[in-house]
C-alpha cells in the first residue's frame, strides 16, 4: 500500500479495501471512523488482526506507586511497553533503580492510567519548589510507609470527599492548577510515544484511573480516551464521588461535547467490590424510566470489564453462584481466585473488600458470569441491559511495566512491597497482595490496523478478549448457518464475519427454519520465540448462561475443541511440561440447549496445558533453606492453566 498522507485519500483507500468479498448487510458505513489525521498504516487487514496491549498501568504519578518507591514516570512506562529496558527500585544512592527489566516482546498498544484523584497532591509533595513540600502530610508521604498508603487511600472512600486541607486548602497550593499541569504531562507523554507513522508499531491512549473506594469496596474504573481531544481536567472521585456522576460528567464533557472527544470507562476488580461494582440499585431510584436512563448511560460509557489482573480473576467463582443457579461448580474458576473463602453478600452489598480477606463479602455479581446474568435479568425487566460486558485483561502494574505478565520472570507489580522473592511469596496482611497476587494479563482486540481509531473502535464494539498473560489469539463467531466443515475452509474468517457476528456482538434475528445458533471458536497458541517455546493449548470451551421465562438462571460450560483428558501435566521439581497439546484448535458448535424464548450469552474460554504458577517457579529458584512457608503450603495452587477469554455474543429473543 502506498504511503498516503492526505486524510481524504485515506478514506478513499479505506472504502476500496473495505470490499472483503461480499457486502456485509450490517455494516454499510466504513468499519471505523477516523477522528485524527495521521499516516495510513501500511499493515491493514479488513478481516482484522489480534493486537495485544495493557490498559491498566501506574507510574510514579500515582500516590501508591510513589509511596512504594517507584520513580518511573509515564515516559518510562511507554518506553517499556514498546520494548525497551527500564530500571526498577530499590534505588541506589543516586536515585536510580537497581533492577533492570524488559519485555520479551513489545506491546501493540497501551494506556497510562494513573490515579488522577490525587495528581495534585502527589505533585505538591514531590516538587521541592512547592509551598507545601515541608508540610507534615508531604513529609510523611515521602517517607513511604504503609500508613501513608492507608491515609491517602482512605481519602478516596467518603462519598463526600475532601482534599487534604494542608495541601489544597487556604495555605496550600492551587490543586486544580497542579492537577491540570500533571494531566497536561500525561497527554504529552502519550503523544510523544504514539507512532503516527505508517509503521503503526505502537499505539498509546490518554487515560487515567477514577479511584473511588466507596464503602471500602473496589469500584475503580480506567477512563480511556479515543484521541487527543480530552477534557481540561480528569473527572476524579473528588469531583464525582459516585460512578453515576462520573458517567454523566463524561457524557457532558466528552461524549456529547461536540469536540470530537470519545471515551469509555473500564471497571476492574469486581472480585473485591462486595457486590457493589455491578449493583443494580440505581442510586435508590425506583421510577422505571430513571432506572432505564441509568442503565442506558452505564451501557454507553462502560461496554467492557477487566476480567483478570494482578489482583486476581473476576470471571467466575467456585463458591458464589447466581442465586438459584442450578449448575455444578466450575473447578477452573479456582485459577487466581482471590477470595475463595468469604461471607456471601447474597443480594446485598458489603464493606471492606479492598482491605484484605476476612472483611466484607463476595457476591455473585462480583464475577463476569453473574453480572452477565444479572444484566439479562435487567433487560427482561427494564428493556435495557446495563451489563452487556465485553472483556479485556491487563496488569495493573504500579512499576510502570505494562504487559509484564510473564510467569517466569515476574518482579512484582507493587514497588517495594513485592521486590524480592520472599516478599512476593508472603501472604499480605492489610491490603490484598503478596502470595495471592499474580503477574496479571493482557488486553486483546481484533482491529484492522494498529491506530487509535481502529483499536478504540474495537474496544467500543467489544471485539475484544483478555488473556492471563500468553499471546493466545482466539476467534469467536456466532450465526445461524455456519457449515459444520468451516474449520477446514481457509476462508473461515471472512465467512465468520459475513454470515454472523464476531465476539462482542448480538446474534442477528434467527432466520425462519434455523433450530439453534452455531458458533465457531478457534485459537492459535502463543508461538515459539527463539529462547522460549509457547505452551500448547489443551482445549476450547464455550460458556453459556441463560435465563428462562420465569427468571430461573442457568449456566453450562461445554468443551468444544481439544481434549480435557490429554493427561498434560507439569514436573513440579523442574517445571518441565509433560504431555502433548495443540498448536491450534478450531470447532463449529451448535447449542444443544437452545430455546428461542430465553435470553442467553455465550463466550469462549481457551485453555493452555498446565504450567507452573509464578510462585512455584520462585520457590524452585530459591535454595531450600531460604524458601518461605508458602513454598510448602499445600493450599497454594502450584500449577495453573493459562487462558484467554473472549467477549460474549448475546442472544435476545
Amino acid at each position: 500500500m502506498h504511503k498516503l498522507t492526505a486524510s481524504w485519500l485515506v478514506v478513499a483507500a479505506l472504502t476500496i479495501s473495505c470490499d472483503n468479498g461480499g457486502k456485509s448487510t450490517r455494516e454499510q458505513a466504513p468499519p471505523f471512523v477516523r477522528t485524527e489525521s495521521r499516516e495510513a498504516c501500511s499493515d491493514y487487514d479488513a478481516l482484522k488482526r489480534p493486537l495485544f496491549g495493557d490498559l491498566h498501568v501506574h507510574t510514579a504519578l500515582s500516590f501508591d506507586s510513589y509511596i512504594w518507591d517507584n520513580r518511573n514516570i509515564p515516559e518510562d512506562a511507554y518506553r517499556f511497553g514498546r520494548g525497551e529496558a527500564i530500571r526498577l527500585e530499590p534505588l541506589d544512592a543516586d536515585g536510580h533503580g537497581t533492577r533492570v527489566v524488559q519485555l520479551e516482546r513489545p506491546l501493540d498498544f497501551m494506556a497510562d492510567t494513573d490515579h488522577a484523584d490525587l495528581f495534585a497532591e502527589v505533585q505538591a509533595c514531590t516538587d521541592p519548589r512547592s509551598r507545601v513540600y515541608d508540610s507534615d502530610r508531604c513529609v510523611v508521604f515521602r517517607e513511604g510507609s504503609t500508613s501513608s498508603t492507608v491515609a491517602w487511600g482512605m481519602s478516596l472512600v467518603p462519598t463526600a470527599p475532601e482534599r487534604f486541607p494542608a495541601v489544597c486548602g487556604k495555605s496550600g497550593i492551587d490543586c486544580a492548577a497542579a492537577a491540570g499541569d500533571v494531566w497536561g504531562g500525561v497527554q504529552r507523554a502519550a503523544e510523544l510515544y504514539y507512532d503516527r507513522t505508517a509503521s503503526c508499531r505502537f499505539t498509546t491512549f490518554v487515560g487515567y484511573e477514577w479511584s473511588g473506594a466507596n464503602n471500602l469496596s473496589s469500584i475503580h474504573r480506567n477512563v480511556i480516551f479515543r484521541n487527543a481531544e480530552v477534557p481540561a481536567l480528569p473527572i476524579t472521585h473528588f469531583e464525582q464521588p459516585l460512578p453515576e456522576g462520573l458517567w454523566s460528567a463524561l457524557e457532558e464533557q466528552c461524549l456529547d461535547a461536540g469536540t470530537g472527544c470519545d471515551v469509555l470507562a473500564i471497571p476492574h476488580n469486581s472480585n473485591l467490590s462486595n457486590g457493589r461494582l455491578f449493583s443494580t440499585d440505581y442510586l435508590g431510584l425506583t421510577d422505571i424510566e430513571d432506572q432505564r436512563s441509568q442503565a442506558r448511560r452505564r451501557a454507553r460509557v462502560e461496554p467492557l470489564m477487566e476480567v483478570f489482573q494482578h489482583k486476581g480473576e473476576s470471571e467466575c467463582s467456585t463458591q458464589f453462584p447466581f442465586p438459584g443457579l442450578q449448575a455444578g461448580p466450575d473447578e477452573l474458576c479456582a485459577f487466581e481466585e482471590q477470595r475463595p473463602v468469604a461471607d456471601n453478600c447474597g443480594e446485598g452489598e458489603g464493606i471492606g473488600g479492598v482491605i484484605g480477606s476476612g472483611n466484607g463479602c463476595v457476591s455473585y455479581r462480583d464475577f463476569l458470569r453473574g453480572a452477565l446474568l444479572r444484566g439479562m435479568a435487567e433487560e427482561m425487566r427494564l428493556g435495557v441491559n446495563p451489563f452487556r460486558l465485553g472483556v479485556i485483561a491487563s496488569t495493573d502494574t504500579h512499576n510502570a511495566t505494562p504487559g509484564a505478565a510473564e510467569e517466569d520472570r515476574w518482579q512484582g507489580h507493587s514497588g517495594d512491597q513485592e521486590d524480592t522473592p520472599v516478599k512476593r511469596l508472603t501472604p499480605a496482611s492489610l491490603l490484598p497482595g503478596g502470595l495471592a497476587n499474580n503477574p496479571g494479563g493482557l488486553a486483546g482486540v481484533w482491529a484492522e490496523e494498529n491506530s487509535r481509531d481502529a483499536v478504540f473502535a474495537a474496544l467500543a464494539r467489544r471485539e475484544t478478549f483478555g488473556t492471563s498473560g500468553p499471546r493466545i489469539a482466539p476467534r469467536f463467531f456466532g450465526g445461524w448457518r455456519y457449515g459444520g466443515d468451516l474449520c477446514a475452509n481457509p476462508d473461515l474468517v471472512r465467512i465468520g464475519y459475513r454470515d454472523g457476528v464476531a465476539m462482542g456482538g448480538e446474534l442477528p434475528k434467527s432466520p425462519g427454519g434455523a433450530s439453534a445458533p452455531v458458533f465457531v471458536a478457534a485459537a492459535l497458541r502463543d508461538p515459539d520465540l527463539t529462547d522460549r517455546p509457547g505452551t500448547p493449548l489443551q482445549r476450547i470451551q464455550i460458556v453459556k448462561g441463560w435465563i428462562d421465562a420465569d427468571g430461573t438462571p442457568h449456566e453450562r460450560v461445554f468443551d468444544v475443541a481439544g481434549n480435557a483428558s490429554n493427561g498434560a501435566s507439569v514436573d513440579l521439581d523442574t517445571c518441565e511440561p509433560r504431555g502433548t497439546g495443540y498448536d491450534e484448535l478450531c470447532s463449529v458448535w451448535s447449542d444443544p440447549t437452545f430455546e428461542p424464548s430465553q435470553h442467553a450469552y455465550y463466550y469462549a474460554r481457551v485453555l493452555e496445558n498446565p504450567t507452573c504458577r509464578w510462585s512455584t517457579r520462585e520457590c524452585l529458584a530459591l535454595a531450600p533453606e531460604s524458601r518461605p512457608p508458602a513454598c510448602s503450603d499445600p493450599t497454594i495452587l502450584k500449577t495453573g492453566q493459562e487462558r484467554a477469554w473472549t467477549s460474549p455474543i448475546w442472544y435476545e429473543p
Partner: protein
Amino acid sequence: MESVLSDEKVHAPPAPERRTRGAAPAIAIASVVLAIAALGSLAIARVNASRRAADAVTAHAVGDARHIEVSAAAADALAREQARSNGTQPSAELRALAIRDHVDREILYREAQALDLGRDDPIVKRRLIQKMEALIEAAVPDDPPTDAEVSAWFWAHSAELEQPTRVSLTHVFFRRDRIDGDLERVAAEAIAALEGGAAPSSMGDPFVRGSTFAARNRDELAAIFGAEFAARVLDSPEKKWVGPIPSSYGWHLVRVDAREGARLPDIAEVRPRVVAALVNERRERTRRETLDRLRSQYEIVTPPG
C-alpha cells in the same frame, strides 16, 4: 553527658569505687547522692541553655540584612493571593496582617541565614543543589539545532537509525495433521496449483490471524509465526511461492510480495528524533562543562585508593 541545648559538656561525677560487703547501704546512699548531683548538673545546664536562648533573641543579621522593605507591588500581590484563597477581597485589617506575617517570615529567614542554620540540613542542601542545576539548565542555548548539526548527528548514528529488513507476504497454512503422504510432494503440488492461478484463499487450512501481512520485520513475524518461520522467510525470493516452511502451527507456503531491505530512513523521516537527541546532548554537555569549570577552581581532597 551532653546537653542538647548548648555546646557545654556537663560532666557526670566520677563513678564510686568498689566497696566491700557490708557497705551496700553506703553504696545505695552514694548512688542517690550522685543521682541528685547529676540532676543538679542537668539543672545547671538547663539554666545555662535558657540563658543562651535568651541571648539568641538578639538579632544576628547585620547591616543591610536588617532592612526590610515591602513594596506596594509586593503588598498588592499578597492581597491578591489572599483574595484567591478566601474568595473575597481582604479588608484593610487583613491586608495589614498579611504584610506583617510576610515581614515576620522574612525576618526569620534572614536570622536563619545569619546563623547558617541551613548548613547541615539535607533538605535545604538538596534544594540549593536543584536551584544551581536549574540555573545551569537555563544557560543552555535553546536555539534549534541547525541543518548541519542534524545532518552530522544523523550520519554519525546511521547504524542505530537503520531500519531492519521488512517483508510483505501472503501465505497458505496447512495443519500438521492434515498432510497425508509426503510433505514435499503435497507442497510441490500446491505450489504448482498456486502458480497456475489458484487463489491462495481457496487452499489449505484457516489461519485465524490472517493470510497477508504488510511490511513486517523479523521480530514481528516471529511474534506471529514463531522464530524459525521468520528467519526462513526473511531471505525468500520475491514473487515466488516457496515451501513447506515450518512454523509454530504447522506448514506454510509463502510468497514474499515485497521486500524492503535494511535501509537508512530519510533525514526528514527521523528529524524529530534527531533534534530531540541533539537537544539532550547539548544539555548534558553544558552541564558537564560547567561542572568541569567550577571544579577546576576548587581544591578537592579525597581519600586515597
